[in-house]
């Protein structure tokens, strides 16, 4: 029971993070002018679209690594369903987000559990970043004021460099974000997360740019904490497809038992 809970928690947090990261991959495609429009475009891109994909998450520590494979389906920002395909002990575990509600299904004990709303706003596997920050990233337009600082080069790609400061009332833990967004393909190449004392906490880095599901995007995303040497969390998209029709009733608790 307690072991299961801890596994459930891990998975939940992980998956909420994935949904948001996927959303950010979807973002930034064909905008230009003002910095707010770039960010707004990103928000709009996330709405209404469907995504299907397989991905691998690697937790890297100085003395070990662990990987997890997942399949995911999402529709807009309201619906998401994720299935763990490895490691074998978590295989078949399904996570469903439907509007504001979240459930997990653990096939080995045939248990459907509804998770508390705080599951969406908690730390992510106790590791490199807080889940809340990732979730909040999806509301960047509302919660931050953005300033275009100029242009810069990341991995040989010309990028907009944008500073984002949280608005006064926004429930955001960060003091400041600095993002680099690719000028040509609007790929979020890098983001630095600073705390309220302007200390660097995490760096988000995108790489391995390729065409997936008809879009040019980064297939590898990494999060590196500033103060922990050798710690890193890596997310690799193995396949992605966009805008294939998915019925709303795909995202039901009944279907959680059938996607295995």
């Amino acid at each position: 029971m307690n072991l299961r809970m801890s596994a459930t928690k891990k998975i939940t947090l992980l998956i909420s993070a994935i949904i948001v990261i996927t959303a950010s991959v979807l973002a930034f495609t064909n905008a230009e002018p003002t910095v707010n429009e770039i960010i707004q475009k990103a928000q709009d891109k996330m709405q209404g679209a469907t995504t299907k994909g397989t991905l691998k998450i690697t937790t890297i520590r100085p003395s070990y690594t662990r990987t997890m494979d997942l399949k995911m389906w999402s529709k807009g920002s309201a619906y998401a369903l994720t299935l763990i395909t490895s490691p074998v002990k978590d295989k078949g575990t399904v996570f469903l987000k439907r509007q504001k509600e979240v459930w997990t299904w653990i096939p080995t004990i045939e248990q459907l559990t509804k998770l508390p709303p705080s599951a969406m706003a908690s730390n992510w596997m106790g590791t490199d970043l807080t889940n809340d920050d990732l979730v909040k990233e999806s509301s960047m337009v509302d919660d931050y004021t953005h300033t275009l600082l100029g242009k810069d080069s990341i991995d040989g790609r010309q990028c907009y460099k944008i500073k984002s400061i949280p608005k006064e009332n926004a429930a955001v833990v960060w003091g400041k974000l600095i993002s680099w967004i690719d000028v040509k393909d609007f790929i979020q190449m890098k983001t630095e997360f600073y705390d309220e004392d302007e200390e660097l906490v995490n760096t988000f880095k995108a790489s391995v740019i390729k065409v997936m599901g008809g879009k040019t995007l980064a297939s590898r995303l990494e999060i590196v904490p500033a103060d922990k040497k050798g710690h890193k969390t890596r997310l690799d998209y193995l396949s992605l497809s966009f805008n294939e029709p998915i019925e709303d009733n795909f995202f039901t608790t009944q279907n959680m038992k059938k996607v295995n």
Partner: protein
Amino acid sequence: MKPKHKVAFLFVLISCSATAQTKWKENFSYRGYVKDLRLISIDAKGHTLQQNFIHNRFNFRYQLKSNLKFGLELRNRFFYGEFLKYVPNYGDQLEYDPGVIDMTWSWINNREFVAHTTIDRMWLNWSNDKWDIRIGRQRINWGQNIVWNPNDLFNVLNFANFDYEERPPADALKIEHYLKKGGSLNFGYKFAKKWEETVFVTMYRFNKKLYDVQILAGKYHRDAAVGLGWAGSIKNAGFKGEATYFEPIMDSSDRAFITSVSVDFLMKKGPYVVISTLYNTLGTSDLNKLLQLTPTAGGTLDVKHLMPNKYSLFVQAGGSVTPLLSLNLAVIGAIDIKGVFMMPTIAYNLKTNLDLNIIGQSFLGDSDKWRFLSNGIFVRLKQSF
């Protein structure tokens, strides 16, 4: 069946399954684990007792048609150690199969060694986009609540019996009909040799205003039963509960009302916390009955006795310290009988599919003064495949 035949039967079963894998690889799948579990228990007088066993589980699936699936799961357990000398008929105790068909065997049964096999799932499942029907030995899990499930009239969990997370089965028929917006109409029938051991229940489940709600009514053993369950939230915390009322319709049964209400939440950068209460009108005031919960005592309960006493409080906090290490502490207070059950757990992931668990279980009670009634330390290695 004679013991030898039983062994032969098992080998045939496993080798059949192995053949199936190569022959119909596409439709066949299996998974499982092997656990090595060591228990040292210390009773109130300070006597220690050691129990060792190896626990292996297979979960087999075969997709007969696109909408028809067969499932078979079995657990093999091999017991050894001094414990068997003190409980000489342990193998016989395990031999009992509460189902309609006996699929439980202690195929080696002596004072040094007990080898035991039980098929605890064997079902056929048919489904389409409106219906899901399963017949056979299965788990019917209708609980919404976290620790105690008064609505779970088919399979009951004893929290202390952590090594059987799949839970005992029911030989049953389960029908689920899907309704709009994730709602469903459900029917479950648990077969039994005697009428007074059968269970049949109809349940309506729906989702409204961010709440999962279920209403159920049926027959449970010698009683008529009605129940309500929900899972929703208050602010950022989960708010869940279940209540069931039992009214005797046959002799020698007791009227009962059992309810449990829970709150759970994840603290930011902190643990996952569960707080739950249980009220049972049938609870007794006998402190010693608390020890029924220990896994070595059999650890079986029924839905009318989720705890042996009346008022209980459960508190649990736990979470990941690193990606490999998680810690957890669960405490049950049997308030009215001044009893406490504590279960701290350390879980460490040694390799991708190899987990180490160290689990403590302590029962404390206050009959005249507070003292330990029983302590146990479990060390478990689990290899998943």
